[in-house]
C-alpha cells in the first residue's frame, strides 16, 4: 500500500523534533490512507445474491467502463473509519466550549428511539392511514415548541437554522406582499454582531441589509434603531440572547418600535438554550424565530449536520407558513400537502416530504426526558456555568462587557496585548491541553473575540480544570517567554497547523488515481 501519496510540503519552522517511528504512527494515533489507496479488485464488504436474469430495459444507457470505486472487506472498512474517528474531538470526550454552537450532551436513548421499527423505517409517502403515529409525533413536538416559545404556529420543514431563516424571512416577504408593501419595504436591519447567515438570507431575498450599531453595553442602540426605522424597513433580524452572549434588555421597546413602524421582528433563535423554559419569545413581541433542534434540543451535530430548523410564527405570519403541516380531523391525523385546501396562503414549499423526522424524534425524546421542570433547569445551569467561567477568569482574561452574561461568556484579546500571542495561538494551545477551542473572532464587533459556551452538560470539577488550564495558558502568554511555543501549537494533535493558503491557492478537492497531488502542490 502506497502511503506516501499526497501533497508534499516543506517542513515548516517549529516542526516537531520527536523521534519518528517506523510506521509513522504514534501509539493510538494511526496514520491512515484514503480508501482509494487501500482498495484491491476482488475485495468486497457485502455479499449480495446474483441479480435475476432479465432483459435489459435501460434504453441503451448502460454505463460503460469502471466507476473507480475501491474494493475493501468489512474488517478493513471498520478499521479505517474507526481510525479516522480517533482523529476527532467530540462532546463525548470532554469540554467543547464552542460559543453559539451549544455543544451539549447527546443522549443515546434519542438515537435508540429514532431507529425503532415503525419510526426510523417509514417511507414519507406511505398512505397516511399507515403513519398515524408518526404524524402524531410531529404534532406533539410542534405542541412543545409552540408552548415553550409562546407562539401560535410552527413550520416544521426547514432542514437547518439557515433554512429556517429563509423560511421566516419568506413569511415576512409574503405578509408584506399581501399588504401590497413588498416593493416599498426593501430594507432589513441587522446588528453588526449578527451571524453571517442573517445578511446572507436577507440579501438572497432581495433585501438591502442595513447594519444597526451596538451601544457600549453590547446591546442594540435603541435610539439608532428608531432613527433607522421608516416606511422602507421590512424587518429587523435580531439574535436574542445576542451573539455577545447578552440578553437584549430593551427587547420589548425594540419590538414595539419595529411594529409601530410597520415592520416585522425576526428573531434568530440560535441561542434559545439560555432561556428555554424561562422566557417565551412570544412574550417579547417576536414575529418568527427558528429553533436549531441540533443546539437547544440536543440532536447530534454529526460533524456539521444534519440539523433541523423549525420556525415558530406569530398570528400575523402564521397564514403564510409553507407546506406541509399536520392537521387533526376528528381522531385522524393528516398532512396538508401542496394543493390541499387550507386556511391562509402558504408561501410555497421549502423541502421535499415532511421535514427532518429523525431530528424531530430525537428532539422530542430529549424534551420529554427533561420535561418543563428539566428544561428550565437546563437554561439555569447553562447560564450559571457561563457566568461561573466568566467570574473565575475575569482577572486573568478580559471580559468584553460588564455585568452577567447569558449562556456564553465573551472575552476580547486585550489580556494578550503586547504578548505576541494572538487569539488563534491561544486557542491552538488549548488543543494541546485536551480541549476544543472556544469560538474565535466571532462576533466581529469584539477585537480578537473568544466566545465560551460551557453548556449545562459539564460537571463543576471539569469546569474547574478547564478554568485552571486557561489561567495557566494566560500566565504563560503574559510571561513573554513562550511566544514560540504558542506559535508552534498544537504539538500533540493528530495534525499540527495546516497550510490553508496552499489548500485555497491550488484546490485539490478529490483524490485522483495518479500522484497528481504532488504536481498540484508545486
Amino acid at each position: 500500500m502506497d502511503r506516501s501519496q499526497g501533497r508534499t510540503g516543506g517542513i515548516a519552522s517549529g516542526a516537531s523534533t520527536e523521534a519518528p517511528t517506523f510506521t509513522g504512527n504514534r501509539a493510538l494515533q494511526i496514520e491512515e490512507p484514503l480508501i482509494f489507496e487501500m482498495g484491491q479488485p476482488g475485495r468486497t464488504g457485502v455479499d449480495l445474491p446474483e441479480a435475476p436474469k432479465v432483459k435489459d430495459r435501460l434504453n441503451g444507457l448502460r454505463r460503460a467502463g469502471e466507476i473507480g470505486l475501491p474494493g475493501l472487506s468489512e474488517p478493513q472498512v471498520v478499521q479505517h473509519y474507526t481510525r479516522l474517528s480517533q482523529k476527532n474531538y467530540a462532546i463525548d470526550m470532554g469540554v467543547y466550549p464552542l460559543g453559539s454552537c451549544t455543544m451539549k450532551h447527546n443522549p443515546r436513548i434519542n438515537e435508540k428511539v429514532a431507529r425503532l421499527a415503525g419510526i426510523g423505517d417509514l417511507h414519507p409517502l406511505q398512505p397516511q392511514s399507515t403513519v398515524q403515529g408518526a404524524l402524531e409525533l410531529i404534532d406533539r413536538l410542534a405542541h412543545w415548541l409552540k408552548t415553550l416559545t409562546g407562539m401560535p404556529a410552527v413550520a416544521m420543514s426547514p432542514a437547518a437554522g439557515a433554512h429556517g431563516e429563509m423560511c421566516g424571512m419568506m413569511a415576512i416577504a409574503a405578509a408584506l406582499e399581501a399588504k401590497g408593501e413588498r416593493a416599498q419595504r426593501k430594507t432589513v436591519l441587522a446588528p453588526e454582531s449578527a451571524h453571517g447567515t442573517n445578511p446572507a438570507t436577507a440579501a438572497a431575498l432581495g433585501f438591502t441589509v442595513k447594519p444597526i450599531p451596538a451601544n457600549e453595553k453590547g446591546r442594540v442602540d435603541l435610539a439608532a434603531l428608531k432613527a433607522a426605522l421608516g416606511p422602507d424597513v421590512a424587518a429587523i433580524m435580531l439574535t436574542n440572547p445576542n451573539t455577545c452572549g447578552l440578553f437584549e434588555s430593551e427587547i420589548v421597546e425594540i419590538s414595539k418600535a419595529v411594529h409601530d413602524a410597520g415592520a416585522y421582528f425576526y428573531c434568530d433563535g440560535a441561542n434559545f438554550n439560555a432561556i428555554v423554559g424561562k422566557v417565551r419569545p412570544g412574550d417579547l413581541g417576536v414575529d418568527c424565530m427558528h429553533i436549531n433542534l441540533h443546539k437547544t434540543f440536543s440532536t447530534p451535530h454529526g460533524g456539521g449536520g444534519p440539523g433541523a430548523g423549525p420556525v415558530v410564527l406569530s398570528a400575523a405570519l402564521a397564514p403564510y407558513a409553507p407546506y406541509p403541516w399536520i392537521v387533526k380531523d376528528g381522531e385522524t391525523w393528516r398532512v396538508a400537502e401542496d394543493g390541499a385546501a387550507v386556511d391562509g396562503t402558504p408561501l410555497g414549499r421549502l423541502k421535499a416530504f415532511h421535514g427532518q423526522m429523525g431530528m424531530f424524534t430525537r428532539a422530542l425524546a430529549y424534551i420529554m426526558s427533561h420535561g418543563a421542570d428539566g428544561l428550565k433547569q437546563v437554561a439555569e445551569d447553562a447560564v450559571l456555568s457561563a457566568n461561573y467561567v466568566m467570574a473565575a477568569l475575569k482577572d486573568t482574561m478580559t471580559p468584553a462587557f460588564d455585568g452577567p452574561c447569558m449562556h456564553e461568556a465573551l472575552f476580547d484579546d486585550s489580556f494578550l496585548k503586547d504578548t505576541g500571542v494572538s487569539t488563534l495561538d491561544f486557542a491552538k494551545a488549548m488543543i494541546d491541553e485536551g480541549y476544543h477551542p472556544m469560538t474565535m473572532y466571532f462576533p466581529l464587533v469584539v477585537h480578537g473575540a473568544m466566545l465560551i459556551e460551557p453548556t449545562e452538560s459539564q460537571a463543576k470539577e471539569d469546569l474547574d480544570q478547564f478554568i485552571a488550564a486557561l489561567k495557566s495558558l494566560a500566565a504563560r502568554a503574559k510571561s513573554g517567554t513562550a511566544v514560540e511555543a504558542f506559535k508552534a501549537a498544537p504539538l500533540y494533535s493528530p495534525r499540527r497547523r495546516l497550510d490553508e493558503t496552499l489548500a485555497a491557492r491550488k484546490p485539490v478537492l478529490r483524490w485522483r488515481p495518479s500522484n497528481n497531488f504532488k504536481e498540484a502542490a508545486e
Partner: protein
Amino acid sequence: MRYLPLTDADRRDMLGVIGVKSVDELFRDVPLSARLGAKVAGLPDHLGELEVERAFQAYAAKNVSPSVAPFFIGAGAYRHHVPATVDYMIQRGEFLTSYTPYQPEITQGTLQYLFEFQTQVTLLTGMEVANASMYDGSTGTSEAVLMANRVTRRSKALLSGGLHPQYRRIIETTGHWQGFKAVSGKPDADGLEDLIAAVDKETSCVVVQNPSFFGHVRDFGKLAEACHAAGALLIVVVTEVVSLGLLKPPGEMGADIVVCEGQSIGNGLGFGGPYVGLFATKEKYMRQMPGRLVGETVDADGKRGFVLTLSTREQHIRREKATSNICTNAGLCALAFTVHLTLLGEAGFRRLSELNHGKASQLADKVAALPGVKLLNEGFFNEFTVSLPKAAAPVVEALAAKRILGGVPVSRLLPGDKSVENLLLLAATETATDGGMDALVAGLKEML
C-alpha cells in the same frame, strides 16, 4: 435529572464565586414582564428513560412498518438494506458528537471522510468536483438553479415535467421569493418530452431528472448541446443514486451540475429525513458552488491533511454576498453514504444496481400482465409507472388496509391533475421478495 451534572451544592458554590444570591439575578436583563415565575405551564415534567422509550414504542405501534409489509414505494426515497456496520460507525461518538470541522488539527476524521465522500460523488456522477453535501436532493436542486443563475447572469429556469413535483415546487417557491422565473413543463408521464426548442438566450438552466419522476431513463446529450449552444447550463437530478451503478452518468451526457438525493446509500427512509444531497459540477464553476468544500493540504510537519477550503464563498465571511446562506449540511448522513459505498465497492455497487433493475423488471412484467394495466415505460431502472383502469389513490388505500404498501398514486404529488388520476408509481429494490410481489399482484387483481 440524569443529564445535569451540577448538584445543589455545586450551584451554591458557583453562585458564591459569581457573587450573586440566586440564579434569577443572572437573568436580570430580561424585562420583568417577560420573566416566568415558574416553569412553562401546560407541559409535563421530566420522564425516566424507560417511560420515554415506552412513549415512542406507542407512536411506532400506530404505524405500519415497511419491514413487516410488502413494500413498493419510491418517488424520491427508496428502501434499501443498510449494513449494520454503517449504523455502528455513524454512532461512534467521535463522529456523532463532533461539530463542523473548523479546527482541522482535531477533526481530521471528519475532514478525511468528507474528502472521500467528495471523491465518491465525482466518480458516481462523472463530474470533476463535488461539495461536502447539501441538506438533501430537493433543496440541493434549488441551490443548483441559483448557481446556474449566478454563472450565466440569467434568471429563467426551464423545469422538466419529469422532475419530482415537490422539487419543482421548491424551485418555484425559491424563484417567486428570490426573483427568478421558473417555467415548468407538463407532467411527462410517457417520457417523450422534448425541451430543446424551449431553450433560448434568456434560459439560465434546464433541470431534468434521470430516471425521471415517472421512472423513464433517457439520454440528455442532445439537450446538453442545445443548452451550451444557447449559453445555458444543464442540471441533471438523480433521486435514486443506486441507478448510477448501471446507467451512463450525467457527466458523460454533458451535464454542468448534477444533484442527487443520496439517501439510498447508507441512509434509512426515516419518514423523509434527514437525507443527504450530493452536489457536483465542472471545475470551472467550482467557486460558484454552494456549501462546504474539503481540500487537501499539508501540516506544519509536512504531513498530508485536510481542511475546509474556499470558505470565502460562504456566509460567515461573505455575509450578504455569499453564494448561499447554507451553514449546517448533512455531515453524518454523508458519512453513512461513504461507509456504505465503501463496503459495496465497485463490484458490490454494480451488483446492487443490477439486482434492483432485475427485481423491478420482474415486478413490471407481473403487474403489466394484469387486465387493464398498462406499463408506460420503455426504459426504467427500479421504478416505473402503470396506468390502472381506475383511480389509483383508492386502490393504494385499499392495499394499505391489507397491509400492502403498494406504491404511490401520482395524484398524491400532483393533486387536481385529472390526467394522472389513474397512474401508479411502483418501485422494487433488492429488498423486494417474490412473496411480496405475489401479494401485491394478487391484491391489485382483486381491486381492479
